[in-house]
């Protein structure tokens, strides 16, 4: 236990920041209680102030009680006053160190350092250190990987930079209207104490009665939509300003470093040695537009927060995303573009079956309740009305199924509403599960599960043909599979699997 290094404190600037926060928090309460001082609903402002002050004071207490130290083989943090916590993380378990800063923290030149060790409850954050110490700590903990400051990391290859063409791709959404509706709603409540009635103002703007319901909705959408899109553009730029994704460091200790943000900058470092694969996420609407979001599959990132989501890039055109993916993987393979093996026709039948009997089952259940007198008679056929939606979705779900192996990678694809194409290094496979229901047994299909320590921790190739499923395991982990998978002595025993083994290319 010797040579552990001294206990260190968080930056004293946290105190300054908290004092400023106390002062700022008082403003709305003062306005509400002293300036307005009438019967209006000022309690919201006062409560807001109280919460702000309380938050700042708690933060001060946290600053007073928090100590941390960096030992040669572990990092420790002690915090808390009433409930004390002492957390120890072995240094070889540290998977990621990244830092972030909100606007106010940036003003005080503070950075929050997140130390991630894979499991959620053994990660901790140091909130906050001054910029110099944060950079020092990042370098210290990830010795080998380069520090994020550009002047200290000479060996950097840029993989992608924010391009103006990305902006329209990322702001077009049907939900843009709600970007306006939400703030308007809160503005309405905020302005009420000051005697401003937004609803009244809106009523006076147009002759709603003559427009009718449809006309009113259309007008609202026509006005709200452009504003919503503009707001989305602003939010996107605020978050992604100066976005760049680079590979830093010298081999073998390289890392993917992404930086972004206008007011608050966020730097995320991902050690290349922990990179296990990539994934494209394509929700239904984006798929029609040919857009995809790129995610990394790495070990050791906590499953929460910005780094945990694994989102590497904003939405891009599929072609561009593929180019970037090839540069991220950096070993010359392009597994995400490999033609996939389609799953047997039975998988489609199964999905159509779900789409039909799911609602039917629900209707049957409701019928039971109807017969017992708990529900009125018109309720039970309602679930059947969703079948026009579920049946096409079954086809979409079937069409997105696929898997293959490509060089040192295996690829699985699936999902109806959110199609995800995942490629995983074969070495990242930490076991196999094969699942087969009675119906799948008759149809010669099985669901392959691929447990891994990275990303979502479990990827699936649902409803592959038995032959396809076992071949996938054999190709990905030949030695392991050889112990459990054998050639049947008589191929004629399984005529079904011979039929379903057809390999079709996408």
């Amino acid at each position: 236990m010797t040579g552990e290094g001294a206990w260190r404190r968080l930056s004293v600037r946290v105190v300054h920041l908290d004092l400023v926060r106390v002062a700022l928090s008082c403003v709305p309460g003062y306005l509400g209680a002293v300036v307005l001082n009438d019967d209006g609903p000022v309690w919201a402002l006062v409560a807001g102030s109280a919460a702000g002050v309380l938050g700042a004071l708690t933060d001060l207490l946290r600053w007073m009680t928090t100590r941390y130290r960096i030992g040669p083989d572990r990092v420790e943090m002690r915090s808390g006053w009433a409930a004390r916590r002492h957390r120890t993380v072995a240094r070889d378990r540290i998977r990621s160190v990244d830092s972030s800063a909100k606007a106010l923290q940036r003003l005080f030149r503070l950075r929050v350092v997140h130390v991630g060790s894979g499991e959620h409850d053994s990660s901790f954050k140091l909130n906050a250190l001054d910029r110099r110490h944060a950079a020092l700590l990042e370098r210290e903990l990830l010795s080998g990987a380069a520090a994020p400051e550009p002047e200290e990391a000479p060996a950097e290859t840029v993989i992608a930079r924010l391009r103006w063409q990305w902006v329209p791709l990322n702001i077009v959404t049907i939900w843009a209207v709600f970007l306006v509706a939400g703030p308007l709603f809160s503005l309405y409540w905020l302005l009420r104490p000051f005697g401003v009635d937004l609803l009244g103002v809106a009523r006076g703007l147009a002759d709603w009665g003559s427009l009718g319901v449809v006309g009113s909705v259309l007008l609202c959408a026509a006005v709200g939509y452009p504003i919503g899109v503009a707001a989305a553009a602003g939010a996107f730029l605020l978050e992604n300003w100066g976005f760049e994704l680079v590979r830093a460091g010298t081999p073998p200790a390289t890392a993917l470093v992404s930086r972004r943000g206008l007011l608050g900058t966020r730097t995320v470092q991902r050690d290349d040695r922990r990179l296990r694969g990539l994934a494209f996420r394509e929700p239904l609407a984006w798929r029609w537009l040919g857009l995809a979001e790129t995610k990394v599959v790495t070990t050791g990132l906590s499953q929460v927060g910005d780094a945990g989501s694994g989102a590497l890039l904003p939405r891009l055109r599929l072609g561009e995303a593929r180019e970037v993916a090839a540069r991220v993987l950096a070993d010359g393979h392009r597994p995400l573009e490999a033609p996939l093996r389609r799953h047997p026709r039975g998988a489609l039948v199964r999905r159509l079956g779900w789409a039909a009997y799911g609602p039917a089952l629900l209707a049957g259940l409701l019928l039971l309740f109807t017969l017992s007198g708990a529900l009125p008679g018109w309720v039970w056929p309602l679930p059947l009305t969703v079948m026009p939606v579920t049946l096409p979705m079954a086809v979409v779900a079937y069409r997105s199924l696929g898997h293959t192996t490509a060089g040192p990678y295996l690829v699985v694809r699936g999902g109806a509403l959110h199609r995800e194409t995942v490629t995983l290094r074969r070495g990242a496979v930490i076991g196999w599960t094969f699942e087969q229901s009675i119906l799948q047994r008759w149809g010669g299909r099985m669901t392959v599960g691929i447990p891994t320590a990275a990303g979502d921790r479990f990827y699936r190739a649902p409803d592959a043909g038995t032959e396809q499923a076992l071949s996938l395991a054999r190709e990905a982990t030949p030695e392991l599979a050889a112990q459990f998978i054998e050639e049947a002595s008589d191929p004629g025993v399984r005529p079904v699997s011979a039929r379903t083994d057809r390999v079709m290319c996408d």
Partner: protein
Amino acid sequence: MSGSGLRLRPPRHRVDPRFVLWRTLQALLWGAGVLGTLGAVYTLAEVTRPWLGPVLLVLAAIYLVNVVLMPSWRYRVHRWEATGDAVYALEGWLTKKWRIVPISRIQSIDTERGLLQQALGLATVRVTTASGEGKISIEGLDARVADETVDELRRITAATPGDAT
């Protein structure tokens, strides 16, 4: 690559025959608890009857199958083995599930013995990996066999270098 007629060979060992008794007792206890509670509510509170009636009906059918059919069916399916470099298990009844975990990826090995299992001299061996879905539970082993297996696995795991996943 995909030759005709690949199949998963069944793991070598069956679980202990007392497994059937254990699962039957377990299903009986659960059934009695759940149906008893709901039945009591059904008889005492008249307003709930239209709602609870169908639920009771469906649950009673499920528990009947669970008590009569499921344990022996599972016993016929469940199999396991631990080789020098992997743990391999097959479980399920309506849906069969094969699980393979290489020794080098094992993070922890546990034995677990509930009250019923203790009374019957059974134990459950649980092997976990870095992936929540990648764990194996082998239920209903003879307690002595379970202990030996776990000791053996601990020995092999310690001798096998892990990989930093």
